[in-house]
Each structure stands twice: as structure tokens, then as C-alpha cells.
């Protein structure tokens, strides 16, 4: 019979391997029906906060019950056995922390700093209740997925591992990567610093495991207070005294370390020690709740794409209206991983603070592939709802005869001062060539223009039909004016919005 620690390590290797495997699978060639966002869907914080902000438990997020319900009975097992960021943090703590036992005992004691995560959680949940979903910034599954999609995977490609046909690039991707590096390096100062101090999902699971029936229990007669159990304690949960149940990750290291076999995991036995309730100050809790409740309307009063349409906030096909989108999106970047053209990018602050790291289309980097609906297929929260190809490209025909309009992401506009046939008496018309609709939304007039030398040149000057344009951005992407394209898509006309329109439908 292998030890509990060995079993836990096997699980850790399995779940981290699963995380990497599903991430690798998440592209056009390998998707093949794999549930690539399984770990994102298992996340109780996404389910709860997304439920508060949107009022629904969306599809696969029901899987989070597979974590929530066992946690009520068995404790915070997710953190040490399943969570890929927890597993990574544990590995790096193991690597960085080489301490004399006495020093390890001192450092692995419970510390009041650990309460911070509960206040963060409470603040985030209050914000969510006001419709502001920001858990994704700190949620470990979303954070790690985003860091791998935007940071680690492209870095592997840079180092010569063949993951993509073309090296992907991401807006401000280095900041996302630096956050991951900072979290990993923090293990240098405290074992599982992130998990103990900052992780809002850990806090939620801590609260859920508060009354768990199964827990680490200490036989007060066998125990001789040697503190060996603290040497490798991951949670800092004081198994040597009254166990802080909410801090215990069930890593089982204490049971393995105990020289007197005084510790066991299970139901209470005749001489089992008392547990300790979650250490929270009601005053602090009220403070963070009130601060969040005050901040929510402040955030809503700052300019954002939800308050006023923003030209470059072009959302993926199937994205909900901006307000609903922000109430669902956890910034996990799963859509950016699966996007074949690299057009999906983590937004910076252009669409408002709330929209940080949510997906937008940057057509200079890619374009929305006409028949592609992958982003909606992998979105775990339904911020981008799953579309069929037919829904995306629409069904042509007279209205009322089963026809449907295509999904429009925005509208293309010509910049006649930069367009070669318009401004420089030079043939071009690449935009018309690549326009994917039939008939093409880009059309042209052939005109004779005179160049500087006085020669007559026949050029085709492009125009745009705003009714046919779907805003896919391939014209902007392929425009030979390489820096600021002579045809650019802005968000106006997007199907998802009722307000961001310009043409009165005929």
C-alpha cells in the first residue's frame, strides 16, 4: 500500500499532466470533441461568482458541483490534489525551500496574513453580485490557463518546440507572464505563498470545508508536541494544535511525518483534538464588503465599452452584449488558445478597467476566419456562446423564408488617404480579393486617374457595403499598408449590440 503522500503526488502529476494535455489539445487540428476546458468548468469560484453576476449556472460549470459537494464532506482536497497552480506552487516550494526543521516549523505556523484571501474573496463576490466579475484576475485555474496560453506556450514556440505554424504574439503578454513568475517566485519566501495568502478559490474552498466531516485529526494522548508535523505542512494549518480546518489542503504530509502515528485523516476517534474555526474578523469582512459595494458603482461610472461603444473593442463571434459579456468572461484566454489566426488578444485598458485581459480582435495580428467557431466552443462560461458555422455565416435569402443574417463583428471603413488606388494612383484591391462573403462586401469602381507624371492609370477604387460586411477583418489584416491599414474594422454594426449601429435596416 503506497503512502497517502505518494498517492497525492500521483494525483498531482495526473492533474497537472491533464492540464497540459487539454491545453495542447485545444487547437483546430487536435480539438476533436475533447472537453478542453474541463478544469475551468470544475472551478467552484467561476460557478459561484459567475452565478452571482449573471444569475445562471452555465452548462459545464455544473461540473463544479463535483468539487463543491465532496469538499463539504472531505475538505479542501482540490488545492493539493487537483489545482494545477497549487501543484505548481507546491513543486516550486519544494524546490526553493530547503530549511532546517526548526526554521520550517516556525515558517509553517498559521499566520494572520492568511486571512487576506477571505477578504479578497468576499470583495470579489460582492462585486460579482453587482454584476462586476473580476474573479478571473486571481482565480488560479483562469490565471494559469491565461498564463500558459499567453506566456508559456508562445515561449515554448520561441525556444523551438513546434506548437504552432506561426509564432503567436499577444498584447501586453509579458505582464501576464510576469504575474505568473512572481507567483512562482513568491514560494521562495513562504511555502505556497499564493495559495495561503491570496487565492480566492482557496478561500472559497476553505469556507466550504469549514465543517467537513473528514479532516486531519490528532490523538492528544499519542502526540508529544514534537512539531514534526509542521515540517512540510503546505497550508500552514497547525496540525500540531487545534487544526485550522479551512487552511488544510489535505496534502497528508503531517501524517507521514508524525513519528508517533498520532495523526489520521477521517472521522473523530475517542481522543481526537478539536478543530479551529476559520479565523475571520467580522469587522474586516464588513470593511471589504462595503468597499466592494462602493467600488462597483464607481467602476461602472468610469468610461467603458459597456457605457459607450468603443471602436477597437471588437468581440469574438457569439460574444454576448458587452454588459452580459463582462458578467461572464473570466479572462481565461481559452478562446485565444484555440483561435487559429491569433486575432484574439487580451484587451488592455482601452475598453475600461473591467475589460482588462478579456478577448478582443486585433486585426493587424489576425482576422476572424470565416468558417471558424472554435472560440465559442471552448468558452467555459458562455461569455462567447457556442455558434454553429451556419449561424455564424448566416443563411442567405429573403427575410422570413428561413434566412438568417450572419454574425457581424463590426464594420470595415476605408481610409482614402492611405488607400493605394484612392490616394496613390496604384492598383491594389487585395481587400476585395480576400473578402469572404458572397457577394463580396467590398466592391469597386474602375476609374481612370492621372498620376504625377500625367499618365492615365486605370485603378479599382474600393467601397464597402455595410449591409454585407461581417467585420471579420481579413481586409485590414491583408492590406499591404502594413502599419496602419488603409481599411480598418471598428465595432459599429456588431450584431451583439442594439445600440452600436449606424445603418437603418431597409
Amino acid at each position, binding site marked *: 500500500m503506497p503512502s497517502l503522500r505518494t498517492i497525492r503526488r500521483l494525483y498531482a502529476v495526473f492533474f497537472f499532466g491533464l492540464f497540459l494535455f487539454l491545453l495542447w489539445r485545444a487547437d*483546430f*487540428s487536435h480539438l476533436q470533441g475533447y472537453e478542453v476546458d474541463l478544469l475551468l468548468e470544475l472551478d467552484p469560484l467561476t460557478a459561484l461568482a459567475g452565478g452571482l453576476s449573471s444569475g445562471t449556472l452555465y452548462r459545464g460549470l455544473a461540473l463544479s458541483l463535483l468539487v463543491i459537494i465532496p469538499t463539504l464532506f472531505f475538505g479542501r482536497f482540490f488545492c493539493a490534489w487537483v489545482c494545477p497552480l497549487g501543484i505548481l506552487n507546491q513543486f516550486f516550494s519544494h524546490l526553493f525551500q530547503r530549511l532546517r526543521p526548526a526554521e520550517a516549523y516556525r515558517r509553517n505556523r498559521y499566520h494572520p496574513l492568511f486571512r487576506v484571501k477571505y477578504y479578497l474573496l468576499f470583495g470579489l463576490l460582492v462585486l460579482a453580485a453587482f454584476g462586476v466579475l473580476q474573479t478571473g484576475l486571481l482565480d488560479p485555474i483562469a490565471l494559469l490557463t491565461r498564463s500558459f496560453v499567453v506566456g508559456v506556450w508562445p515561449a515554448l514556440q520561441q525556444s523551438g518546440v513546434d506548437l504552432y505554424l506561426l509564432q503567436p504574439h499577444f498584447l501586453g503578454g509579458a505582464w501576464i507572464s510576469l504575474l505568473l513568475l512572481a507567483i512562482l517566485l513568491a514560494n521562495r519566501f513562504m511555502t505556497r505563498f499564493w495559495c495561503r495568502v491570496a487565492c480566492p478559490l482557496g478561500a472559497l474552498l476553505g469556507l466550504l470545508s469549514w465543517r467537513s466531516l473528514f479532516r486531519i485529526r490528532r490523538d492528544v494522548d499519542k502526540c508529544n508536541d514534537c512539531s514534526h508535523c509542521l515540517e512540510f505542512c503546505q497550508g500552514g494549518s497547525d496540525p500540531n494544535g487545534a487544526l485550522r480546518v479551512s487552511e488544510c489542503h489535505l496534502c497528508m504530509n503531517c501524517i507521514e511525518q508524525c513519528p508517533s502515528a498520532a495523526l489520521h485523516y477521517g472521522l473523530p476517534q475517542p481522543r481526537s483534538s478539536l478543530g479551529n474555526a476559520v479565523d475571520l474578523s467580522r469587522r474586516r469582512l464588513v470593511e471589504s464588503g462595503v468597499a466592494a459595494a462602493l467600488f462597483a458603482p464607481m467602476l461602472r461610472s468610469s468610461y467603458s465599452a459597456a457605457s459607450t461603444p468603443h471602436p477597437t473593442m471588437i468581440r469574438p463571434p457569439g460574444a454576448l452584449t458587452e454588459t452580459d459579456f463582462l458578467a461572464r468572461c473570466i479572462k481565461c484566454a481559452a478562446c485565444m488558445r484555440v483561435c487559429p489566426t491569433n486575432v484574439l488578444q487580451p484587451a488592455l485598458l482601452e475598453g475600461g478597467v473591467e475589460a482588462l485581459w478579456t478577448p478582443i480582435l486585433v486585426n493587424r495580428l489576425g482576422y476572424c476566419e*470565416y468558417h471558424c467557431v472554435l472560440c465559442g466552443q471552448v468558452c467555459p462560461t458562455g461569455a462567447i456562446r457556442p455558434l454553429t458555422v451556419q449561424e455564424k455565416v448566416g443563411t442567405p435569402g429573403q427575410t422570413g423564408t428561413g434566412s438568417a443574417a450572419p454574425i457581424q463583428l463590426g464594420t470595415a471603413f476605408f481610409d482614402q488617404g492611405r488607400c493605394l488606388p484612392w490616394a496613390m494612383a496604384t492598383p491594389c484591391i487585395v481587400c476585395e*480579393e*480576400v473578402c469572404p462573403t458572397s457577394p463580396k462586401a467590398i466592391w469597386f469602381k474602375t476609374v481612370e486617374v492621372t498620376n504625377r507624371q500625367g499618365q492615365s492609370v486605370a485603378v479599382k477604387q474600393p467601397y464597402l457595403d455595410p449591409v454585407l460586411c461581417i467585420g471579420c477583418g481579413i481586409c485590414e489584416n491583408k492590406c499591404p499598408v502594413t502599419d496602419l491599414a488603409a481599411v480598418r474594422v471598428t465595432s459599429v454594426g456588431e450584431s451583439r449590440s442594439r445600440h452600436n449601429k449606424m445603418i437603418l435596416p431597409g
Partner: protein
Amino acid sequence: MSEINAKRKTRPSGSRNQQVEPTWSRRRFLIETGKTAGVAVGIAGLGYWAYSPEPVRHAQETVLTLKDFRVESNPLYPVLTVVRGNQVAAMVQEAVTALGGMQRFVQRGDVVLLKPNVGWDRQPEQAANTHPDLVAAVANMCREAGAKQVWVTDCSINDPRRSFARSGIERAVQQSGATLQLPGGDDFRLTDMHGSLLKVWPVVRFFHQVDKVINLPIVKQHSLSGCTLAMKNWYGILGGQRNRLHQQIHTSIVDLAAAVRPTLTIMDAVRVLKHNGPSGGSLDDVAQENTILAGLDEVALDSWALHLLDLTLQQVPYLAMAEQRGLGQTDWRSLNWLERQLGTG
């Protein structure tokens, strides 16, 4: 205060840390000086080695030239065959047999590169890409003729993985035992095109690694050049900013056709994209012509195909330009050509 002063008085004079360096001998001095001087010389040498009047160090980039893939002409065989029918594989077989059979073009042990037009994420019925059955048939014939390997490549305009999958060509390649070569970011080599307009351009490296090249274009309408046929299909070997070629599209097409001289060209006119080209998208844009052409003269092939798109030679200037450049003949009727009908059509 007085207590501290009292303590200070009782302390012995000098530092508490009494470890001292031994006095240096002359020998020690010379050795230490020598070591430091060695480091100094090393740093100065490094500076000398790295010194440059230029702000960046330029590695000499090699520029390749494409070889001529043609086989010797043979007056016994026609240079253009037109086959009509319903079975693509049989039509291709017939067209190539009339030219002397695939063994005339592919020798045992050759690595053969097929260049279909797989520009777009479209289905075969939409006629934006070469017919997958044509690719499969040619790959099979090359292997039967003894080709060691058959590679298939194109630099798609849409996402390459999707384009090859949706066009059915990925499956055709797999089923015929050929190899799909999707060009990635570092698969391009600077190549001197020796053109009047096109000089040094990045060309997908497979063209420098094979013995034979077979062009597999499809007949499509194109708003700027009028049509995209055999000669324009060579756009798909270029990386870099090839969308600039539109600015002088006819010269570019002629330069490309002059730079890439294929072993054989087999043209897909089974479905013809008559409008909304070159991407199409609607079945209303497609006409069923059920024709396969094979030939050695790209200019003649392109000229023959014009009528399918209701075009005349005058409307497509690159053909006359190519003829002037000596790349082939626009007057295909004057050549040794033949036409066949397979089945009832």
C-alpha cells in the same frame, strides 16, 4: 547614558573584528598584479574583437535560385491535352498518358512537389481550391511512376490547417500516401526570382528540396488580373508581403512564371469559379465544366481556359507579356494539342 559610556570604557581599543590580511611579499604582489592584468587584457581583447564601425552585425544571408524543373521537349507528344468526362482520376490519367505518361516526367527515386491552389477555407463544391481528386490522382500516378516521395504544399491565404482540411486536400494527401508540407514561420528561403519586378523574395523551402514540381491550378475569376490560372498559381510559393504584387499584377505573374518552370501542369476545370473570385463562397458562383487539362506550356493552358471565364486575350495582358518573354504561346490552336471525351460527359 552613563551606563553605555562605562561599557565603552571597559572595551579594548580597535575593531571587534580582528582578522587581518597577511603582508604581501613582492612575489605575491607580482602574481596578483599579473592575474588582474590578465583579466584586463582579456576584457580589452574582447572589446577589440567586438569593435565594429557598424551598429549591427550582419550575417551574410544566402540567396538561392530555383532550378528548372522541366523535362526535355519531345515532338512525338502533344504539349496540351484537354479531357472531358465525369471521373476526375480517369480524366487525369488520360490527359497525362496522352502527353507520354507520368514516367516521362517522374523518374524512379524522384521527390515530387505538387502545388495545388489551396488558398481558402472552402469546400470542394465552392471551387475556390483545386479538386482533391485531382491531387490524389496525381499523387498516385507519381508514386506509380517510382517517385520516392510526393509532397504537397501551398501558402494559403486563410488559416493553412483549415484550408487544407476543408478543401478535402489533406484527406486526399493522406489517402494517397503523399506528405502534406504546411509551411510554417521559418520554412522560407530568400530566392532570387531574376524578374523584371520581382528580385529577391522568400520562397517556401520545399521548392529548393525537390526534383520535380507539378502545378495543379484551378480555373477561377479574379477581379484584378481577370483570372487566376496556372501562372498565377505561383503566388502561393511566396512568403513575405506578397499582397504588394497586386500593384503590378501582370508583371508579377509573368516574373513568377519565368522563375518557376514546372515539370508539368494539370489544370482543374471540373468546377469553375465564374464570379466572386478568387474566394467564392456561394454555389451560384460555380459552373460545372467537367474538364481536366494537362500540358507543358502554361501560357497555352491559361489561354485555352480564358473562354471558361468569358474572357479574351486582350482583357488579360499578362498572357501576351508572357509570350513576349518567351514563356509559351497564347495561340494554343497552332500547337500540337488534342481533345478527348471520356464517357458521355
